[in-house]
């Protein structure tokens, strides 16, 4: 059933908070905290208000494991580890049947069965 239009923006479409905090996706909570304080010192709210807000918003998303788990749901996921790529094992052995056939065919190349045709006399 379709009803009247709704133009609510999709929530949770912020910048990747890990990128903002210059962190790896696997960073620990401790690393997140450290990165936040370091960046806040670098971009104090008095002089870098906009950047500070961005950093603050990013930190808010990752501040607790619970919040982080929710934030992670709406972030681009990196590709999985590459699968174990198989090494191709070519068959590089000598096959008996080929050798036997070769021995046979080489000799048969020397034989002519036509020469065994007989002259029949009635």
């Amino acid at each position, binding site marked *: *059933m*379709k*009803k*009247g*239009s*709704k133009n*609510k923006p*999709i*929530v*949770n*479409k912020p910048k990747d908070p890990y990128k903002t905090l210059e962190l790896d996706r696997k960073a620990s909570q401790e690393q997140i905290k450290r990165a936040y304080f370091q960046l806040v010192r670098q971009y104090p709210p008095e002089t870098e208000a906009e950047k500070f807000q961005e950093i603050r918003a990013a930190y808010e998303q990752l501040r607790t494991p*619970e919040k982080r*788990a*929710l934030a992670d*749901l*709406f*972030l*681009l*996921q*990196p*590709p*999985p580890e*590459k*699968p174990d*790529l*198989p*090494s*191709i*094992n*070519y*068959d*590089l*052995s*000598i*096959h*008996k*049947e*080929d*050798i*036997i*056939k*070769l*021995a*046979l*065919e*080489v*000799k*048969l*190349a*020397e*034989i002519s*069965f*036509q020469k*065994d*045709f*007989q002259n*029949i006399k*009635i």
Partner: protein
Amino acid sequence: MAKNKLKFQHAKMVSAVAKAKSQKDLPSLLNESLKLLQAGNLNLALNLALEAFAFAEKDTQEKVEELLAEIYFRLAVASATDFSLRITHLKEAISLSPTQTRLHFFLAVTLCQIGNFAEAVLEFDKVATKEPNYSNLQYLHTLAKLVCNQKVDFSNLTSEEASTLKIVENIISDKTNNILIDIQPTKHEFWQALAQMQQDMMASPVLALQKSLDKGGNKKSVIGILEYYKGVAAMRQGEKGAAQSAWQKAKSFGFAQNHLSTNLDYLLTEQIVDAAKEEKWQQVITAIGNLPSKLKTLDIVKELTAFAEYYIGHSAASEGNWKRAAEAWRRSNEQDKSCRLSQNLALAEEAIENWENAAEAWREMLKRRSRKETSDNYLNDSQVAAIWKRAAECYEKEEDTEEALTCLKNALKYAENDIDLRLEIVETLMANDQEKAAQNELNRILAIDPKNVTALESLAGLLTVSEKTDEAIEIWRKVLALDPDNKIARESLSSIYVEKSEEITDKKKRFSFLEKALKDLPNDVGLLLKLAITADTLKKGNPLGLLKQAYQSAGKDFKMVSLVLHESLHVKDTNEFVEEIMLVITQQANLPAEFWIVQAKMVVLCELNVSWTRKFFDQAIDQAEKNKKESKAKVLLNIFLTLHSREFQDVKEEVIEKIEEGYIDRIKKECPQSGVLEFIEAHRVFHNRKDIKSAKTLIKEARRKAQLANEKEVVEETHEFENFISRPKRRGLFDMDDIPLSVIRIMEKYPNGPPKDPRKLSAQDREDIEKLMEFFQENF
């Protein structure tokens, strides 16, 4: 000539055969058969010989059998690679002439060719018994015995043959001794090369094998085998290109062993694996596209396809190319059933606003999640609820409120106490016209959190709409108790009190009711104004004092000040006070002239003293002059249009004329070239005479004049009017879906039309009536 000669000979032969058959002339038949044999016409020769055999006597039978055996032998030789047919012919020949060594020898050779070496040995044995020195017998007999693992004697072989077969013996018996190195090279160097390859898995005698091939003179089958092993040798050196080329040649020379096709398939697969190792994902996809279909179904190929598409999608998404990312991930999704792929796909679909696809991808992600807490793909209850909410948002974008509601309800299963989520469900239920369900949900929220102001506000709003005003009042009071400054609660409660007061016909009771209501909402402008008017009619208290109190409460709220202005006109002896308010209002910065036109309109609609109407219209003209940006001509036009609008259709004509008096003269005097006069004429011609053609001519003239006078706003009005008179009248019924809900509501509430006095309308009603007017103007 030659052709005719042949025809003649054939006819002669047919006639001779027919004659010989009819007369059972055996010598003639045999002669004809022999002639055919010598001419190479083996099948006809066989037929005649068989005819002859049927009536051959004992003394002639041996001769016929000799002939038949020869024919069968030659047929066997002619049967080329059809070994089964060859064996049949040879067995026929042997049955007719068992002593012929050549027949057994040829049968033995053929048995070797089909790989039946055991039977071949027996046939070679027969040959050896009869003719031990039969040409090539020793070599082939020994070879067959070797294959059958029988004891062999190399002494009767030439040194060349012995060397070859010794190598063969070593290879087929898996002997890896150095004897091979001591064996002198045969005339075929490839034996030595192959022996080396057998002995040492690293040996790669490409050159030696190539040399043998370069010599030429080999059978096709021999070339096929040698090319294959040249490819093997090249591959042992890691030369994939050379190997591939040699193996392709082997295939073209009829080498059709499984190990060749397996190795060729491996070559193709390895190209993909190599590209994947180097993370050249597009190359991987291209290479897979070129694979034969049987290889595309290999697990590794399917896995790599999905993986490469995942990477391509990720890289595109990282560059902001979400369309490409979505396309790649959709392809990857056919094979990769991971939770995280659905997650990325959902994000990409959202980015390109494919909301339904996005919602489905979110749902798919939930299906794919692991239920084991230790898994990376495990989602806790909050996460599951968040995803359901997200899917709901996507459906809402698609305006599919039903699916959105389903998703929200699913989310609720994982977050029962999530008030925000429940409020969102309420909002969606209301958007879906499910007021009763929304009310139930609000009651559930309030059971969890009785002080939730948002839920209380929504519930009170719903009760108001359902006209359960007493219940609504109680809820609004609760809101105000929790949040005394809540503007919505104050305005709504005020509106309900005003409406309820209007239902009380006994003015004294109404007065008491309003006084009581003001205790709930002290200084409420609406209630004070209502009380002032009631006091005025009762000649009780101090109406002017109440108006002044309302004016003070309105403060700088311009909307409220204008309400005080209008309501004051309903009270006697307030002219001075109204003039005072007008003075304050005129000082308001950027006040549009339209404000005074609206005030004037309300005076007429409320059937108040029309002198105020003229006063407000005059004020509008002054305001336009004061503002400078506004055109006097436009204001004068607006006055005319207001007086002739639908809202005024029930107002007596003499009242309209009385008000209008003087404004037409002002137009003639103050802005005669503005086009307004022509506009007014067009309006009259259209509405009074229904003369569309003349109206169009006049409105065009009005526009021309307005353009010359640079009266932009008048020009705009002419366009609007022309469009209005030119549009085809809508006929037939409406599709109910086209009618806004607010319009339906107001039509149901006031089936005989809304009250003329705007004060009798709530703010919501006023807004909805405006929408209704717009709707009718647009559609009729």
